[in-house]
């Protein structure tokens, strides 16, 4: 259904329920939907599972959401950073669950969710602790591990520009997880720096077609 252009980040995150799985875009600050995360902190949903490449930096954004005890589980590839003290503390105290996923499998598992793929055989992680307990299979002489989709109830992503239908373009390496997360969640919310009229994006250059986008807010 057609996208809604929201007046505020508060409106854009309205209705996110306790227990939701929330996909959060960004690689470091590039593509991080900072204002949407802040709005989610104010919105109040708790017992969340957060899927993101990292698990928060410093005391703001995702880290602030974690610090408020609102996140039950993190699915990510790289939680440990020089400034990930909030996650580090919760993890050492056993107050947050971690599913560590190689970055490529993380992206591909969300891609599978968005693409209707039931599961796929990946060569990444085979023979490592991160494949322990998972089904493996040899195909054409190579060993693969079976990986399942990661689907979100909500995706919060940062894009560059949207048109009023919800078509999105990104900027440089801020693209990262945004396009794949946009395919993998029931409700997709994009923060952008500019909303343009329908027809003002070149159809050849649209990265996330409007079909994937439910709500857009300019920040």
């Amino acid at each position: 259904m057609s996208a809604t252009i929201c007046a505020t980040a508060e409106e854009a995150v309205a209705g996110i329920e306790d227990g939701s799985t929330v996909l959060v875009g960004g690689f470091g600050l590039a593509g991080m939907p900072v204002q949407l995360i802040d709005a989610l902190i104010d919105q109040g949903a708790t017992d969340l599972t957060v899927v993101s490449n990292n698990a928060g930096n410093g005391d703001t954004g995702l880290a602030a959401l974690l610090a408020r005890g609102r996140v039950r589980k993190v699915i990510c590839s790289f939680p440990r950073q020089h400034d990930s003290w909030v996650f580090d503390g919760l993890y050492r105290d056993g107050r947050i669950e971690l599913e560590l996923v190689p970055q490529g499998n993380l992206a591909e598992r969300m891609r599978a969710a968005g693409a209707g793929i039931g599961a796929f055989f990946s060569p990444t992680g085979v023979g490592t602790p991160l494949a322990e307990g998972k089904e493996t299979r040899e195909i054409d002489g190579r060993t693969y591990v079976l990986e399942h989709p990661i689907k979100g109830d909500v995706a919060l992503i940062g894009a560059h520009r949207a048109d009023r239908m919800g078509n999105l373009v990104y900027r440089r390496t801020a693209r990262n997880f945004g396009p794949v997360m946009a395919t993998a969640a029931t409700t997709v919310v994009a923060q952008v720096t500019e909303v343009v009229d329908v027809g003002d994006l070149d159809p050849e250059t649209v990265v996330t077609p409007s079909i994937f986008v439910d709500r857009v807010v300019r920040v």
Partner: protein
Amino acid sequence: MSLSKQEMAALVARDIPHGAYVNLGIGQPTLVADHLPEGSGVVLHTENGMLNMGPAAQGDEADQDLTNAGKQPVTELPGSSYFDSAASFAMMRGGHLDVCVLGAFQVSASGDLANWHTGDPDAIPAVGGAMDLAIGAKSVFVMMTLFAKDGSPKLVPACTYPLTGVGCVDRVYTDLATFDLTADGVVVRETFGISYDELAERLDVPLSR
């Protein structure tokens, strides 16, 4: 009176929600586009790789690089986007389309669809996107005549033609009636020039209303 193809298409168009993302299969379903009201906000998908496809190209508008899935020249509307075949079918298979409208040889009471092959052993098979379309959309609508030219019903207890998809059809629009295929069985929504009792008599599937 039974419905014409155009009247069936108008019925389908009436039931497509505002702003829906829709794929109209090759053949009869493409007629639905002509009946979408101004401002319906409906966005048409064509599986060869485009969203917000416009009407058929007229004369000089025709561009070899801009066609629909039937390889007919079409146009683009403001807000359209292009993508490759893997992305286009991922979009479909991932359940992102709201409605898909397809033609059919047969539909079973449990929603099985047969629309790609008559089973004739001499026929050269061709499937295209039919099987992806059948299982991809949130709602799958079929448009067909209720009876074949030989008088046999096309809404059947079990398809005798090779299947396109299993349990995938949600609603069937025919010239004589529309049906919802539900977990509880086949529900008649409307009839056209035929009574419910006569319909029940002529079909081999249990009906309710």
